[in-house]
């Protein structure tokens, strides 16, 4: 927040400290290891000075001062703890507790409540008030937000986070003085983005969440740091899990430790939409089609059926007999393994996934300059941002938050080009409302083609405004250009080339699902190997895979589905995707196609399958994921669901049954053997700690054919752009990857890109099985956002 680097020195409790001029006293103390208690102060929010907990004695000032509002000054002498200060704080607590219920045993905040901690520290446990406490019933404001008024200490953190960070302004203060209450915008309920930021930031248990309330206590859960499995932003989240009859149930998601790219932000999906994990419809055992019906079967039977048919089809038709469809929600390791399996075992390039952005064109355009790809972190501080297409508020909530915070705290300039009115417009410096098909023209206009300006100008934005915007953009020397799926193919190339002629420009390409970027990077394309390597350049991959790789490009997703409908594709292997819903294929329309599906639920595609294998989701396995900006993060198992297996294990087992040596797919067994602790369930954190320790010692696990680290090894070795710091990754940080094509990438058909158009409250198939998201959509009924067929 403070750019000024001039240091001032001051004395706190006899200790000499220094801090940049302009720093608040409370922050300066914290940075020097002196903790000053606070309720209403929250870093990054406006100052409130409502609670008086942070009072300190500053020499030469008449009264006690609030450390949260006083900036440091040269020569300041501060006493942060003395009898006087303690007495003042104790009195503050005593008054706060005057009407506070004795709810701690049932209160959700119990055990992590700031008021509890302060009462413990300053000891105002005995009340001198005789009057009965004012009681108010708890209120439900929305499916996820509950409010227990007597517990509120009126710190206004919720009001400020909702307004300033979320730009929703759904909470406010009613009345004045002792009668003040926090109130929702609709009087008795909330109409808002349901992000749960207010609940998370509440220092006490006044705001509680529908997903977690009264379920357990903070110290009774295991806490696992992993990555959100919904949109492409890749927020880090800490999942609280507890034992359930069928494994481990996720009961809470937050990022209170502010680790990761998202700080403490999570949108509704990251915070609450983990409930698909325990959805009653989840598949618990393999299904095999017998007499035209899918029937429960043993794992042995399922794997045997698959292996026999796959082997037979390979004998008869060769690689051309297979179509493989990968997922945008599985880990990098699984995607990599899937394409390796398809290419080296099945012998086919018929492999694709649901594309939501033109990553190949992006990589090709960045050829030679991979450092021009922006990380999500670049949005925190960059002085200027140009957003072309997309609606981050809905599709990339974390990006929207990063942009808002940057504008608010650092005065960044935001330029928006869109065919619709976006909420982010409120933060923008300039906004061009162009026709839906005008993106290509706008890029030409940016490049200096004034002729198209009149075609772009419409009722919303006129020619002069466009000209002015272009002028301003040309004056920006540090600019991040971020674009959605509206910009693809040739347009994308032109845009990137244009930006490259300026120094200081960076780019970000927005794709939709948690690991869309990973799927693209790992080569789930019929004409590209991992790292956007053209088939003709197979080099390292050919050498590594041993088998002779198929040379010619395979069929894309649409062609595969068509071929399967025409009876020309004898086998299809679908991992975590629902292509039949996307292409509206009806039951019985596939002819002579042996369909194998790995999924969590009986989706439209799974319902047509001959064998369905129950798969684990990204909250239940380990591996890595790449967000749409190319930031790589580690994924750790939090939940556990009896009966489901990670896709990685399923693929290896299929290959094994087909008679392929697992070592040829997963290079395991080259590491050291060691006690690795449990990798699943309650003690899973143990395995992580072992892993980190082992990496630090230069030895790595990789002792099982299902160990993703063995594959990560190979990815790091072979995939261009994935030469990251391993220690940093395992320590739980995001590390940038830099995939860039080698000049001209294979030309992609821009028509194959199908943006998910998820809103804040939908998330493809996962959203369909999240009761929380559905209940929010229902509550907002009437104001419902357009919904789409889930296709991921």
């Amino acid at each position, binding site marked *: 927040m403070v750019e000024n680097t001039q240091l001032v020195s001051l004395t706190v409790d006899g200790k000499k400290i220094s801090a940049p001029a302009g720093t608040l006293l409370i922050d300066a103390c914290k940075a020097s290891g002196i903790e000053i208690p606070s309720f209403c102060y929250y870093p990054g929010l406006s100052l409130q000075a409502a609670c008086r907990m942070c009072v300190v004695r500053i020499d030469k000032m008449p009264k006690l001062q609030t450390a949260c509002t006083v900036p440091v000054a040269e020569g300041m002498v501060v006493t942060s703890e003395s009898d006087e200060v303690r007495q003042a704080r104790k009195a503050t607590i005593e008054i706060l507790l005057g009407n506070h219920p004795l709810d*701690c*045993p*049932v209160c959700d905040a*119990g055990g992590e409540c700031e008021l509890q901690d302060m009462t413990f520290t300053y000891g105002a446990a005995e009340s001198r008030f005789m009057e009965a406490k004012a009681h108010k019933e708890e209120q439900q404001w929305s499916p996820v937000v509950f409010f227990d008024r007597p517990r509120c200490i009126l710190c206004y953190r919720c009001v400020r986070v909702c307004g300033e960070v979320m730009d929703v302004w759904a909470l406010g203060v009613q009345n004045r003085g002792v009668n003040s209450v926090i109130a929702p915008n609709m009087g008795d309920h909330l109409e808002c983005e349901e992000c749960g930021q207010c609940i998370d930031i509440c220092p006490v248990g006044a705001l509680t969440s529908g997903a977690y*309330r*009264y*379920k*357990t*206590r903070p*110290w*009774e859960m295991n806490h696992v740091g992993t990555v959100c499995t919904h949109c492409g932003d890749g927020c880090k989240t800490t999942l609280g899990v*507890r*034992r359930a009859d069928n494994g481990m149930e996720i009961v809470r998601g937050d990022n209170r430790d502010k680790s990761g790219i998202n700080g403490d932000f999570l949108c509704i999906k990251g915070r609450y939409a983990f409930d698909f994990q325990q959805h009653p419809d989840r598949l618990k055992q393999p299904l095999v089609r017998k007499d035209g019906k899918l029937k429960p079967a043993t794992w042995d039977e399922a794997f045997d059926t698959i292996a026999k048919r796959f082997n037979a089809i390979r004998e008869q038709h060769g690689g051309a007999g297979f179509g493989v469809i990968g997922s945008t929600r599985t880990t990098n390791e699984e995607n990599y393994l899937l394409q390796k399996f398809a290419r080296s075992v099945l012998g086919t390039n018929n492999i694709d996934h649901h594309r939501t952005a033109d990553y190949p064109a992006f990589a090709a355009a960045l050829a030679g300059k991979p450092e021009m790809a922006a990380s999500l972190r670049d949005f925190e501080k960059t002085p200027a941002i140009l957003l072309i297409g997309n609606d981050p508020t809905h599709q990339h909530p974390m990006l929207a938050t990063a942009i808002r915070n940057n504008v608010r705290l650092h005065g960044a300039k935001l330029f928006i080009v869109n065919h619709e009115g976006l909420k982010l417009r409120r933060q923008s410096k300039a906004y061009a409302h162009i026709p839906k098909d005008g993106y290509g023209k706008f890029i030409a206009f940016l490049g200096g083609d004034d002729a198209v300006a009149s075609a772009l100008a419409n009722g919303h934005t006129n020619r002069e405004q466009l000209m002015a915007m272009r002028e301003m953009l040309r004056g920006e020397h540090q600019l991040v250009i971020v674009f959605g799926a509206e910009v693809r193919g040739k347009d994308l190339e032109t845009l990137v080339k244009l930006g490259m002629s300026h120094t200081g420009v960076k780019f970000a390409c927005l794709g939709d699902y948690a690991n869309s970027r990973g799927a693209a990077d790992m080569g789930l394309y019929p004409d590209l190997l991992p790292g956007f390597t053209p088939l003709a350049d197979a080099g390292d991959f050919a050498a590594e895979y041993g088998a002779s790789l198929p040379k010619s490009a395979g069929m894309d997703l649409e062609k595969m589905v068509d071929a399967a409908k025409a009876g020309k594709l004898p086998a299809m292997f679908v991992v975590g995707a629902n292509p039949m819903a996307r292409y509206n294929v009806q039951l019985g329309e596939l002819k002579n196609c042996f369909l194998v599906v790995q999924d969590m639920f009986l989706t439209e595609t799974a319902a047509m399958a001959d064998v369905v294998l129950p798969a684990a989701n990204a909250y239940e396995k380990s591996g890595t994921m790449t967000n749409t900006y190319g930031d790589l993060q580690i994924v750790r198992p939090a939940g556990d669901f009896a009966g489901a297996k990670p896709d990685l294990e399923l693929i290896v087992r299929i290959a094994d049954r087909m008679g392929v040596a697992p070592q040829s797919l997963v290079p395991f067994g080259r590491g050291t053997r060691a006690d690795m602790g449990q990798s699943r369930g309650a003690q899973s954190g143990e395995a992580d700690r072992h892993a980190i320790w082992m990496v630090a010692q230069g030895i790595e696990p990789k002792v099982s054919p299902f160990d993703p680290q063995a594959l990560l090894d190979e990815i790091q070795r072979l995939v261009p752009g994935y030469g990251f710091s391993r220690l940093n990754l395992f320590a739980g940080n995001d590390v940038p990857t830099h995939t860039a094509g080698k000049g001209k990438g294979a030309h992609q058909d821009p028509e194959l890109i199908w943006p998910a158009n998820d809103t804040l409250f939908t998330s493809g198939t996962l959203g369909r099985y999240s009761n929380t998201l559905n209940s929010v959509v229902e509550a907002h009924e009437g104001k419902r956002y357009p919904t789409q067929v889930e296709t991921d």
Partner: protein
Amino acid sequence: MSVLKDIGAIAKGMSITFGEMFQPTVVENYPDGPGPFKGAKFQERFRGLHVLQRDENGLEKCVACFLCAAACPSNCIYIEAAENTEEHRISGAERYAKVYNIDYNRCIFCGYCVEACPTDAITHGHGFELAAFNASNLVYRKEQLLMPTPAPQLQR
């Protein structure tokens, strides 16, 4: 003289011995006595098998705050919490213990849980015959620990 003194002392001692010999026996009539404890008698403070108490309305006092489990030095209390609803009300507060197990393989009867309980729900009763042939029988469930019946007039 000292000899006489010694004889006196011995006589005094023996008189107590013989006097007691003809008193009725004070050894407890366990296990042949009456009552649930089969004649065993306890000090009030004796810490035996836990009892989960009910309030005056017959509702369970335990609100599943997990403090007993946190206080327990041998980590033998296992609780699963759930939320009360209007139709399904188990305890007086918002939350109740859906599962409450005490593992008597591990419990050391220290009384810390009783000390920790903010609602006086968990108490030590006087039950003591806890031996079992199978260790898994020593994991007592809520149903076994709960105070037998709600006050009859308030039964729902």
